[in-house]
């Protein structure tokens, strides 16, 4: 059976514009959540988010190219550039048909949509810009990455809300495992911090307001947690067929060894215990791993009352007594909920944790909640070797994705 190595990592998100800075910020337990800067949020009840700070698109793209790139596509391209560079890969002309891309996004070109709707409904304009469709479509990021790097193999855009990137990486993993490709760029990107998105989320009543203290707003697993915080950014991993990676002497960050997916089929927003539990078991089974092998879980851990309590039950259900021995942190406390990119951002953190033996903490933890009584690595990173780790993504709509990575060497 073909195995899959992770040989490159790229992150462009609020805690850092590269994987190293991103991971160091997480290890220092510093939250990137702050008052929204790139437009005026003063009329909203929720005025905070995890933005990429001081981002200037023209620092990265020529003007002509930018005309066709929504913010979410820009982030995806930037993460893909770093991922490929860090892998040291050179894809030959002959290999291009075995080189593919799978990206997840929840909201697609949200900023372009917002601007156009404003022009249409508020300014009564009757024409919309002809680049609207090529910018807003959810596959724009996949296609732009394919075009920039000449990837002509399997390519998909996955749209399963907060599990999008988890599913994207899982599907890319299988396309190598089942011999449809040798190299895949896989991840997710989202830029959902727009006025209409904030208004839409505000009305679901799951967002934390921060009460004037933005950086401590997101407190997963804490008794006083008050909700999630939207984030933006992208992460992309280079997945490579194991023998190919070995032969060229590539740095292998970890083996991507298991992928589980399931549907709750019960409620459009409330999570279940059985659906996510099945996804975790499926990932363990594919990897041939025992529950006791798992040392770290990067939790979905949104910071809402319901998610964190249910996720705790899920982990107890699957891992039984071992649940109390493993570490389970939520890095969303620092990078926010990056929607369709979040599974990739969190897998990047998971892979770096496994590679370096450093577990990122759950920041902003204040006091225990009896319903969330597992070890959430509160407030301080932990130096601890991890043999096997999983990353959970449980989406609105009840679609779950779980990825399992195994330490190399």
């Amino acid at each position, binding site marked *: 059976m073909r195995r899959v190595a992770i040989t490159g990592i790229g992150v462009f998100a609020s805690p850092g514009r590269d994987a190293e800075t991103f991971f160091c910020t997480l290890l220092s337990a510093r939250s990137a959540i702050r008052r929204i800067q790139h437009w005026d949020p003063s009329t909203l009840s929720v005025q905070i988010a995890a933005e990429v700070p001081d981002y200037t698109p023209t620092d990265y793209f*020529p*003007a002509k190219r930018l*005309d066709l790139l929504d913010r979410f596509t820009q982030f995806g391209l930037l993460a893909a550039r770093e991922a490929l560079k860090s892998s040291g890969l050179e894809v030959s002309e002959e290999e291009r048909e075995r080189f593919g891309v799978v990206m997840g996004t929840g909201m697609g070109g949200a900023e372009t949509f917002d601007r156009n709707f404003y022009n249409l409904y508020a300014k009564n304009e009757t*024409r919309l810009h*002809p680049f609207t469709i*090529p910018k807003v479509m959810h596959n724009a990021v996949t296609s732009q990455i394919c075009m920039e790097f000449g990837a002509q193999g399997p390519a998909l855009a996955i749209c399963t809300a907060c599990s999008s990137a988890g599913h994207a990486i899982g599907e890319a993993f299988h396309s190598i495992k089942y011999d449809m490709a040798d190299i895949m760029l896989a991840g997710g990107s989202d830029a959902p911090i727009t006025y209409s998105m904030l208004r839409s989320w505000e009305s679901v009543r799951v967002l934390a307001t921060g009460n004037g203290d933005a950086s401590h707003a997101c407190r997963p697993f804490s008794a006083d947690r008050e909700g999630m915080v939207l984030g933006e950014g992208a992460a992309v991993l280079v997945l490579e067929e194991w023998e190919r990676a070995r032969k060229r002497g590539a740095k292998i960050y970890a083996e991507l060894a298991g992928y589980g997916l399931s549907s709750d089929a019960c409620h459009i927003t409330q999570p279940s215990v059985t659906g996510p539990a099945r996804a975790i078991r499926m990932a363990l089974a594919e990897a041939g791993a025992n529950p006791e092998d798992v040392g770290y879980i990067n939790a979905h851990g949104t910071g809402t009352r319901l998610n964190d309590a249910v996720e705790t039950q899920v982990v107890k259900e699957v891992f039984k007594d071992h649940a109390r021995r493993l570490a389970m942190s939520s890095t969303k406390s620092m990078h926010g909920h990056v929607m369709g990119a979040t599974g990739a951002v969190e897998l990047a953190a998971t892979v770096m944790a496994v590679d370096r033996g450093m577990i990122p903490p759950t920041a902003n933890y204040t006091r225990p909640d009896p319903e969330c009584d597992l070890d959430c690595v509160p407030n301080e990173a932990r130096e601890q070797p991890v043999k096997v780790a999983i990353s959970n993504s449980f989406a609105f709509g009840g679609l779950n994705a779980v990825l399992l990575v195994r330490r190399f060497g």
Partner: protein
Amino acid sequence: MNIEDKVIEIITREQHLEPGLVKPDSTFAELGIDSLDGVNILFALEQEFKIDIPDSIAQNMRSVGQVSDALTRVIEGKDVSDLVAMAKGNGSGSGS
């Protein structure tokens, strides 16, 4: 500024080209303007002149001269049926 100058200015701006590069006799092919760039330029012209350029004419624009000519006639309310007939014989679009 006459219509042709304005067309050149808009094409230069929308394509992010060096000033002076676009000439009255430049073709879209020479300027590297593809079908998607073409609709973008038409959109900019429509916004600038506050007019509607019919699809039937728009499809046939392949050079700066053709754009200026068609635009002049649309703006001045002249008969454009020959342009429409020419476009029908051509029948290209920008795909899906």
